[in-house]
């Protein structure tokens, strides 16, 4: 199988990689680029643990081919903090104990950030429906919803 060269931008950095045609963006990120923050919980778009931003929209990276990202802008959890300064969502998730095992956390943070970019003042119901594709088995979602709302309030006030 011939590998295909791809040029893309990941977290603001110009990135080149080679991948097979049938390789998912998730596999490229994890196996070829060492960006293991996106997790594979299902590989079929049902859990959201692999969420990344693709050209400004949150997607499941398991449902994107690596070759499709030619010329695209990809943002992953590794690009969310600014150096040692956490994004408000990241900081509030720790403060509010919105994670237990943490495996779903990168995907939820990416998805929550995309929600607040589109809707800075969502209702709880809107947060819950936006995040319905991000499965969490530990928390029962309660503290996640509260953390998103607290971060949203902080971000609105900033």
């Amino acid at each position: 199988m011939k590998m295909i060269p791809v040029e893309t931008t990941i977290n603001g950095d110009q990135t080149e990689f080679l991948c097979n045609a049938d390789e998912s963006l998730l596999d490229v990120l994890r196996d070829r680029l060492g960006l293991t923050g996106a997790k594979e919980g299902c590989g079929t778009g049902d859990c959201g643990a692999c969420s990344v931003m693709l050209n400004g929209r949150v997607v499941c990276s398991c449902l994107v081919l690596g070759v499709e990202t030619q010329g695209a802008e990809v943002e992953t959890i590794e690009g969310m903090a600014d150096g040692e300064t956490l994004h408000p969502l990241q900081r509030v998730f720790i403060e509010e104990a919105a994670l237990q095992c943490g495996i779903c956390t990168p995907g939820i943070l990416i998805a929550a950030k995309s929600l607040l970019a589109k809707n800075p003042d969502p209702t709880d119901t809107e947060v819950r429906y936006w995040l319905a594709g991000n499965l969490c088995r530990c928390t029962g979602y309660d503290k996640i919803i509260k953390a998103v709302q607290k971060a949203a309030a902080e971000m609105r006030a900033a």
Partner: protein
Amino acid sequence: MALDDQAKRTFKVVGTRVGRPDGIDKVTGKAAYGADITAPGMLHGRILRSPHAHARIKSIDVSEAAKLAGVKAVVTGADLAIPDDEGFADIAINCLARDKVFYDGHAVAAVAATSKSIAKQAIRLIKVDYEILPHVTDVDAAMKPDAPAVQEGRALENVPAGMSQNVTTRCAFGHGDVDAGFAKADKIIERSFKTAATHQGYIEPQACLATLGSDGRGEVWCCTQGQYMVRANCAAVLGIEESQLRVISSEIGGGFGGKTSTFIEPVALALSRKSGKPVKMVMTRDEVLRATGPTISASMDIKIGMTNDGRITAARGELRYSGGAYPNETIEMGAQAAFAAYDLEAVETVGWNVMTNRPKEIPYRAPGAPTSIYAVESVVDELCQELGLDPLDVRLLNAARKGTLSAYGPTFNEIGLVATLEAAKAHPHYTAPLGPNQGRGLSCGFWFNFGGNTCVSLNINDDGTVGVVEGNPDIGGSRASISMMAAEELGVPYEKVRTVIADTSALGFNDITDGSRVTFAVGLATIEAARAAIREMCRRAAKIWGIDEDAVLWEDGAAVPAGPNAGTHPPMTLAEIAAVAGNTGGPIAGHHEVNADGAGVSFGVHLVDTEVDPETGATKILRYTVFQDAGKAVHPDYVEGQMQGGAVQGIGWALNEEYIYGEDGRLQNAGFLDYRIPVASDLPEIETVILEIPNPGHPYGVRGVGETPIVPPLAAISNAVSRAAGVRMCELPMSPPRLLKAMTG
């Protein structure tokens, strides 16, 4: 180790809501889970699984797979030892089948190749000749004497002759004259219940990276609830020595009991030994659901008698659990837990474990208890309904309390059931108005909580900081709680303590992270280790001061002279003592080894309002409140998180989650699309009320909290739905087709 005098103690660290030490790594994607590491030259392993529910393996031909370019090793069951110990032998044949496959998804062979795609191609080239055998997946069908035998000769001596070969265990608990008790009842209700098997549903599939040399030395990196358990299982089925195998537990992406066994680690080690290279294996979600532990499926009969004023006169339960294709002990816990919430004069519980052509049951959060308590609490609720009694009053009237002879034998010590019920009764939720098609349900829940083998080292660093080394994977924030207890005991700030999880070579044996044992048992050992370090620090101070070591006390993180006779030395802080340790006798450390008992049982009460759609059978959870005795809540956020997470897992079990088998014995919903765990939009806020009834068995009064909260939701929701729908539901899950059928007849 007994409870300290609570009246005198004011906690400084314990009970606060500090940040977690693994927080930044987990919110930035840095935390390394099972699938997140690689090794130079590593291969990718993949497993071929049985498509049949039950079949004899006539032959396996791996020659074509082995010839494929890039394939470096192929293994089958013949590459693993079958140890004499039945438990280890079951693990071996579950990791790679021998002469028979027992369920759809049973591992048959495995390959290691230079890429994932080559490994995938290679397993398709393995030819297995199966002779398909009759199968049975339903627990009641498997109990019939003429049912297909999943395995033969596995029944214990306590199983009466003439029963199906699939029945492996009988157990019985109780006391009093049950028949006489029923004779005193004004109302008796007897009902049969069924519950579907559910899966732990952790989001991180099992993953490992393993290396094993021909000299028998190896290492495994894996996500597990117990690195020592992985070491023991792997050593046994590979025929190597435990000392030569180092197991490192990664960050763990959820377990809930599901990662208390091994599935892929021995296979990866066998592939590594054969190929001479490190082998990484990561399960797919399909494999997780088809081949790792679901919980038991159950069929249960419950009979309870009650007087008109709500006193239970007698109770009897017969429980039939299927733990999949192997003998299993979960039934014992289910049978013991069934009536634990009640103070009963006469009670009898009989349990049976039955083998079926399903995956090997692996514990799931309070294993055995949610189903049996669901059945009991449903009958209690129906009696309350029939007799026109308040369900909380009836539970208070019959509640187990200190001194109660429990239905499973022990007499209870300080327990929090009555306080928990009273808290529920006083809560505004209990009296809030309900609308049409709405119903309120409640249920008690119980879990034993474990203690167990525990080993902790606590090191005083020369800069005055503290390192705690413990041996239980951190599944719910335990590194924070352990650091908090160390800080509390030593009298230093939380930030000065760092707790790490040891690999198997760095610390003595520890039982797995199970039974809600870690905060209790590791906490207890940490406090004792801290006390040992304190004793040593007091000795060092005594030496410096030239006074008797008995004349030194430890207060607020410093050694102080004990009274005027000890002299007027200024306090020496932990940091000051540590800085000169080299001059006073060398490094300072404390350690503690214990097989901890006194874990202290835990009770909870859940209150839920549901609304049912009479036209579709859909159930909506409107309001949910969890009340639980947590003992001393070390980190209240994490206690609440356990209560909320457990409740929501129970909601999934009650409403939608189930293993669905076809006529062909194959699992039909091996994915998150159709194995439907709750999503965020399914749920309301989960309110929590923590009660702190100190556990006499722990110096700070800590009890395990993690498992109890999955127990009450099944019955609480079933009771709420039954009341809302006007029809008593006796089967889980109450999926919309099932509920609509019940409502419309």
